């Protein structure tokens, strides 16, 4: 089917094409889940628990119901029927265990748990009435403190690689060792757009739902099993998503609650969470990590042990890849990894950008810096000396790994060779200057995905898949991939997504959308091109047996000998209004012999005020190896966003818990700090050339996660270089360097 003889000229792939949805977004025409209007639409407001553990004795809604304009009050005693079995609540990203069931019974499992819903004519009335609901509890003791809960930790259900070699023996014999503890805090995703669901109740009882999600079909399946509704009667739409970062991977509670209200009232209902309620579901879990490295005098790693404890809820075991990286990034024969979970009276954590890697790589890459100092070796040279050609966890070679080029080109761009290795040796006036670096790694996964492509008699191509665009640029890159594969200009392609009725797509996450959906789009468009050729063969007997490989294509034409066949003409001459194909794409079998991963090298300059401790990240160079870059502009934006988040992770972000109350307390964007423009200096992103014919036909690995990985470590390492202080508890706020 491959017709790999494109007419030379403009390839859509790799171009810095503007976002196809950019105009809609900046002109306010892009509608988000909580913005779809309908006459008579009702509004819900969630009433949340104020205790961390116990049960609801009584809910008094009389004052709320007395407010004119309040339509209904729903809690666990009067909700519509919902499923009884755990498996009915287990979505495509569920953690192991018993998923949270909103309004299931009187149990309170965490502070902030939704306990009741007020439905009213307007949002303001619903929220006011919600504030009048009085809940009486029977309070039980709770524990939200990981430093105490860690003593009850159990091994995570995470298939952590088995030990290899003899860590203890090798560590004992190592000439240079590092033995350090690190901690990373809880963090909440805080996308700009709060979670919202608008449920349109149709005349036939079916539900058309605009939801903030990273998986329309995941939500459809969830509602199907939780409410026992026919799938055909549930359509989930997510045309635009205002950031998600993982927070939309699982169906969030506003969705089933809005559906409950719609079903109970047989009316359309919208439920939008408040910013405070954005702190009442999944988050990046706090970790406590112990890192031991042993090396020879010349810095060759002889022993690595990485032990991590993460927090989870009492009802689910949320596991992420925290320690795996320590067994795969560097060459080392004696490796021992462990990963435990400590259950607390909190909600279950959730994947957040580079889940596991963003926290686990903090320990590995800070420890590598400590090792470099202990061994008296330059941190870049230390990493080069320990470069791994193959993934030690899997015993497989990497399909490609241009990490050495990342080190080299990143160091060159940054000016690393001018670094004086001595801490506190560089300064600008009152500012101590620190240069630090770290490496980054993320898996390059691919999931099964489907896509449909059709062409009409004007030569316009429509390609669709149920995936979403959470701001990453999916609309745009899929348009480019489709244009390239079909042989048309991007202007002639429309990509449709965010609709559960479209061809099957995996959740949008894990940096695998380009790899998974992109491959499906590519294959669908190639198939469409083959179908166009079939139509030519039918219509022009002289070409009935022309071989695909002998057919050129591009600019909306097939080229056979000197004959040009415009796609529009081919469709017009066929007996169909449109030609259409749908394909199911799977990861290629050739991947199985390889490990596939993206890599990066991050170089950072910090300025630390020597008296006041204020820290500024003045300059970042991030050199990334992610295979082929589909759109150099949106890919750069992904890395920029990741680096900015890495700066927040290093210096600012932390969901702070009052353990007496068992509650997150800084639940606003005033007090939950993320970087503002003024915090951000120069960020230089460079993509090193990496050819990969194994990972997928696009040769593209995805860039959603890799931008954040390593940034926090590089900053911590730079702070050490500036101040001589090694801070191992994140975030590194100024009080820790005073």
């Amino acid at each position, binding site marked *: 089917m491959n017709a790999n003889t494109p007419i030379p000229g403009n390839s859509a792939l790799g171009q810095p094409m503007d976002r196809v949805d950019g105009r809609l977004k900046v002109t306010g025409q892009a509608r988000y889940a909580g913005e779809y209007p309908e006459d008579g639409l009702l509004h819900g407001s969630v009433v*949340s628990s*104020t205790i961390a553990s116990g049960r609801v004795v009584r809910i008094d809604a009389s004052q709320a119901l007395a407010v004119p304009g309040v339509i209904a009050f729903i809690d666990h005693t009067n909700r519509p029927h919902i499923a009884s079995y755990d498996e009915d609540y287990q979505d495509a990203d569920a953690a192991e265990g018993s998923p949270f069931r909103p309004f299931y019974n009187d149990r309170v499992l965490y502070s902030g748990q939704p306990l009741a819903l007020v439905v009213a004519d307007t949002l*303001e009335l619903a*929220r*006011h009435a919600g*504030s009048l609901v009085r809940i009486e509890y029977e309070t039980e003791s709770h524990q939200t403190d990981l430093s105490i809960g860690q003593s009850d930790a159990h091994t995570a259900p995470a298939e952590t690689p088995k030990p290899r070699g003899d860590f203890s023996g090798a560590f004992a014999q190592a000439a240079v060792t590092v033995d350090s503890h690190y901690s990373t805090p809880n963090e909440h995703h805080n996308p700009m757009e709060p979670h919202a669901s608008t449920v349109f109740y149709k005349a036939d009882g079916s539900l058309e739902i605009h939801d903030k999600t990273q998986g329309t079909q995941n939500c459809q399946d969830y509602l199907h099993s939780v409410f026992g509704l026919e799938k055909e009667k549930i359509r989930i739409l997510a045309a635009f998503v205002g950031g998600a970062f993982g927070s939309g991977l699982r169906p969030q509670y506003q969705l089933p609650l809005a559906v409950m209200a719609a079903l109970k009232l047989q009316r359309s209902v919208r439920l939008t969470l408040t910013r*405070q309620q954005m702190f009442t579901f999944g988050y990046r879990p706090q970790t406590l990590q112990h890192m031991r490295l042993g090396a020879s005098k010349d810095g060759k790693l002889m022993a690595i042990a990485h032990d991590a404890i993460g927090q989870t809820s009492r009802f689910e075991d949320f596991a992420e890849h925290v320690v795996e990286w320590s067994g795969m990034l560097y060459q080392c024969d004696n490796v021992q990894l462990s990963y435990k979970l400590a259950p607390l009276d909190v909600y279950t954590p959730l994947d957040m950008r580079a889940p596991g890697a963003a926290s686990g790589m903090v320990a590995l890459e800070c420890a590598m810096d400590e090792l470099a100092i202990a061994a008296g070796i330059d941190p870049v040279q230390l990493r080069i000396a320990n470069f791994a050609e193959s993934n030690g966890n899997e015993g497989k070679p990497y399909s490609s790994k241009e990490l050495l080029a990342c080190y080299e080109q990143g160091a060159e761009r940054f000016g690393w060779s001018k670094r004086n290795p001595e801490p506190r040796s560089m300064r600008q006036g*009152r500012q101590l200057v620190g240069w630090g670096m770290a490496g980054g790694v993320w898996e390059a996964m691919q999931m099964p995905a489907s896509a449909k492509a059709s062409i009409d008699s004007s030569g316009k191509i429509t390609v669709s898949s149920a995936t979403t665009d959470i701001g990453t640029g999916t609309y745009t890159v899929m348009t480019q991939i489709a244009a390239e594969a079909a042989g048309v200009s991007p202007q002639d392609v429309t990509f449709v997504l965010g609709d559960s009725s479209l061809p099957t797509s995996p959740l949008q996450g894990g940096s695998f959308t380009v790899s998974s959906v992109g491959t499906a789009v590519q294959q669908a468009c190639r198939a469409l091109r083959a179908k166009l050729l079939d139509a030519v063969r039918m219509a022009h007997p002289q070409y009935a047996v022309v071989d695909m490989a002998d057919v050129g294509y591009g600019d909306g034409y097939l080229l056979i000998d000197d004959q040009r066949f415009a796609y529009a003409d081919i469709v017009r001459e066929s007996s169909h209004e449109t030609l259409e194909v749908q394909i199911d794409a799977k990861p290629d079998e050739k991947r199985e012999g390889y490990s596939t991963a993206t890599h990066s090298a991050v170089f950072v300059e910090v300025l630390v005020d020597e*008296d*006041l*401790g*204020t820290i*500024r990240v003045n300059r970042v160079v991030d050199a990334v190896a992610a295979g082929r870059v589909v759109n150099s502009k949106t890919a750069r934006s992904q890395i920029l966003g990741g680096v900015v988040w890495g700066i927040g992770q290093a*210096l*600012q972000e932390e969901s*702070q818990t*009052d353990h*007496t*109350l068992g*509650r997150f*307390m*800084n*639940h*606003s964007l*005033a*007090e939950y*700090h993320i*970087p*503002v*423009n*003024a*915090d951000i200096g120069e960020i230089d992103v460079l993509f090193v050339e990496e050819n990969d014919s194994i990972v997928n036909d696009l040769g593209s690995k995805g860039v959603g996660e890799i931008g954040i990985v390593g940034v926090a470590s590089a900053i911590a390492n730079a702070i050490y270089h500036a101040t001589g202080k090694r801070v191992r508890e994140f975030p590194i*706020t*100024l*009080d820790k360097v*005073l």
Partner: protein
Amino acid sequence: MNPFSYSKPSDVTQAVNLASPASRFIAGGTNLLDLMKENIARPEHLIDITGLPLKDVRPTDSGGLMIGALVSNADLAWHPLIERDYPLLSQAILAGASPQLRNMASTGGNLLQRTRCYYFYDSTVPCNKREPGTGCPAKEGLNRIHAILGASDACVATHPSDMCVALAALEARVHVQGRAGARVIEFADFHRLPGDAPQRDNQLGDDELITAVELPAPRFQQHSHYLKIRDRASYAFALISVAAAVELDGDVIRDVRIALGGVAHKPWRDTAVEQSLKGQPVSRENFVAAADAMLRDAQPLAHNAFKIKLARRAIVRALSDATLGGTV
């Protein structure tokens, strides 16, 4: 947010006549609206004062300036007379909030900002300031951002304003009008320490409206500096801030004002320390001694001991920057 009625009077007398314990004046609303959305402020009646004629900055007979209560924070910070004669005030205002907020926020409203204590801002947990008698979880809880000076058993909250720290150093006066008439409150007396009534941030009566803030004749325009230390470069409340204003006679300190933000329930001054610096030469040793003296009675909580060290260093830095461009 609870339902409320709304009126928009056109003169000050009308406005104060509408006022009651259940009403609130609203100007920019940059803090009050947040408090209402969080169910912390639940006024039954809002009196929109944006129609009142309180928008001028005009010179006073004593050589100072009278700033109308409705002058926006942005207009005030960029006002040519403020920039020229009171650069300390300009710097302090621009160190606060964001451009959007400063465009909306008023001079009078800035004085009435409420604390950013996490517990005050969460209506589901106890807080003596929000609901007197319920307790103060911050004392034993998350108190990294809380007070080190002047706190009480009932409350360890800090005042969040930057502008007020500069106004305290400049010894501004607050003009207010109530039903009983007008009065003038010295800035040092305007805000309260929490004591056993932390619900009261200031001395205003329920019917009293701030009409103007008066600045005395400028004396410190040559040697002043506002230093704000926070967890990010913008849009964060001060961990520590220092308004330093010095009048020099050669290298001898003729007069000095030091006000601290982020340390107490109100902008913090210590006139005895200021007095002790008068007549002393500009020197790092003198600044360090003053800083030590200002923090002598500081009481740390579990998470904010760093503020004492930071405040000391910040005072020295601010005085140094104010006097000799940071060379001592």
